[in-house]
């Protein structure tokens, strides 16, 4: 870990300004992913701006009946929130499927969206990785790729986004609210927030320098059955091989996002409309352009089968 200076930000504006004035600065909230990466010098900020004390840890109902979740709301608190449990069960389920109790006590809403891939080659600084070191190559292509993406990949990167929470946010059409260093704010639909790898897998979101997440807003609840199905080798404390986040209405319509298959939460609106026709058709629409490796080809089947189980569960 490189040496860094440390400050506690006094306000949202001050934090954004401090970040904009120092391109080597990073915000730290829960720190559960950032410090992990700093220890390996995959992240090398020279300045940390601690944003834990900015009061961004509130959950409020919005004017239109939705929910505004502060960026610093801890995963545990979000999962346990009464409204979330009642109206956005998918989000609660996704959160508690992730990490461990200890990590969820620290990890934040914004940090979860911004967590980086768990590709083992990204984590090993001796190995080529376009995400860690642009232009160095992708070791996972042709290497150990069982966990990797099958859709939306590029020749530069086949990493996945590891978040469970983001799958729920995607299915729930969340909107990410941010503050920029010039004091302006913007709202970004979750679908636009994360990027596909393309030629620049090191650029993972559309956030600008110094811009930071203040909240994530959910639209008013839309009922239905909320199901998060996480498939993994061990029963807990493991990243998803594949996960399905779905809200399914009594008439079989609904919305679905898939985790563990892409560089971002994978949601295809056209696939949503196929849901009443069942898992096979929906999965085909979701993974139409899949380019799996030999090692992760099974994920194509697995998505369909897991989705089938989710649809069946919704019918029960």
């Amino acid at each position, binding site marked *: 870990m490189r*040496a860094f*200076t440390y400050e506690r930000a006094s306000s949202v504006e001050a934090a954004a300004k401090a970040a904009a004035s120092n391109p080597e600065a990073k915000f730290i909230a829960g720190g559960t992913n950032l*410090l992990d990466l700093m220890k390996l010098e995959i992240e090398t900020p020279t300045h940390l701006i601690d944003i834990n004390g900015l009061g961004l840890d509130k959950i409020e109902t919005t004017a239109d009946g939705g929910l505004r979740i502060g960026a610093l709301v801890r995963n545990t608190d979000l999962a*346990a929130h009464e409204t979330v*449990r009642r109206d956005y069960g998918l989000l*609660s389920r996704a959160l508690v499927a992730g990490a461990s109790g200890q990590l969820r*006590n*620290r990890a934040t809403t914004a940090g979860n969206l911004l967590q980086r891939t768990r590709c083992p080659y990204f984590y090993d600084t001796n190995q080529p990785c376009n995400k860690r070191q642009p232009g160095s190559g992708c070791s996972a292509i042709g290497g150990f790729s069982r966990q990797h993406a099958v859709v939306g990949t590029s020749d530069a990167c086949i990493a996945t986004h590891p978040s469970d929470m983001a799958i729920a946010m995607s299915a729930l059409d969340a909107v990410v609210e941010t503050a920029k260093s010039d004091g302006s704010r913007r709202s970004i639909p979750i679908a636009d927030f994360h990027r596909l790898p393309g030629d620049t897998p090191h650029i993972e979101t559309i956030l600008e320098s110094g811009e930071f997440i203040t909240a994530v807003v959910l639209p008013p609840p839309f009922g239905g059955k909320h199901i998060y199905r996480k498939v993994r080798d061990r029963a*807990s404390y493991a990243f998803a091989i594949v996960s399905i986040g779905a809200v399914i209405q009594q008439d079989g319509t609904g919305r679905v996002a898939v985790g563990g298959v892409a560089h971002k939460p994978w949601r295809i609106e056209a696939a949503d409309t196929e849901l009443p026709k069942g898992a096979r058709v929906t999965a085909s629409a979701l993974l139409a352009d899949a380019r799996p490796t030999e090692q992760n080809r099974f994920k194509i089947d697995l998505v369909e089968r897991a989705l089938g189980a989710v649809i069946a569960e919704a019918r029960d």
Partner: protein
Amino acid sequence: MQSPIQLEISRRNLLISSAATIAVTGAATGEAVAQGARTSMQHMSKVSLSVNGESYNLDVDNRTTLLDALREHLHLTGTKKGCDHGQCGACTVIVDGRRINSCLTLAVMHDGDEVITIEGLGQPGALHPLQAAFVKHDGFQCGYCTPGQICSSVAVLEEIKANIPSHVTGDLTTQAAVTPAEIRERMSGNICRCGAYSNIIDAIVEVAGTKA
């Protein structure tokens, strides 16, 4: 049993309780701190921590994790470093009432916080009920993950009481129950390679007052 191990305990207890407030100047010598100061003072910070009811003022490198502050600065080595990357749970401590991985948080982020470590839960001869239950049920073997397991289990029972849901909670809108399945899931962030899981669950279940 009289052994150097026991002598070690009494010596350490003395060390721990010798003053209400202890200033600790890093793991290194005074010379080292001076050198650190010369290179870049702002890479160091002053931190006040309450650990097991004692307050400590530390000068720490900003890079120092809460885990290393406890182990290398305060010599509270009951909190273990198993992976240093949040992948094993051996470093679990309770900060402001919540269990966290002390390896993935910086000491400097905890100024003014209250930390409880395994040493604060109980001592030989005056065990916390969960420590006693772990001994009774042989809920450990090598002992290295044990402090983390125990700190975690103390918090798990509180989390269930506080109605925080888990991955195996049935209905999200009803009170979470104290069942072996719930405890297993919630304890899953604490790896025990010796494989004492079955006994650990027996120990926790007994303290929780529910049937396995």
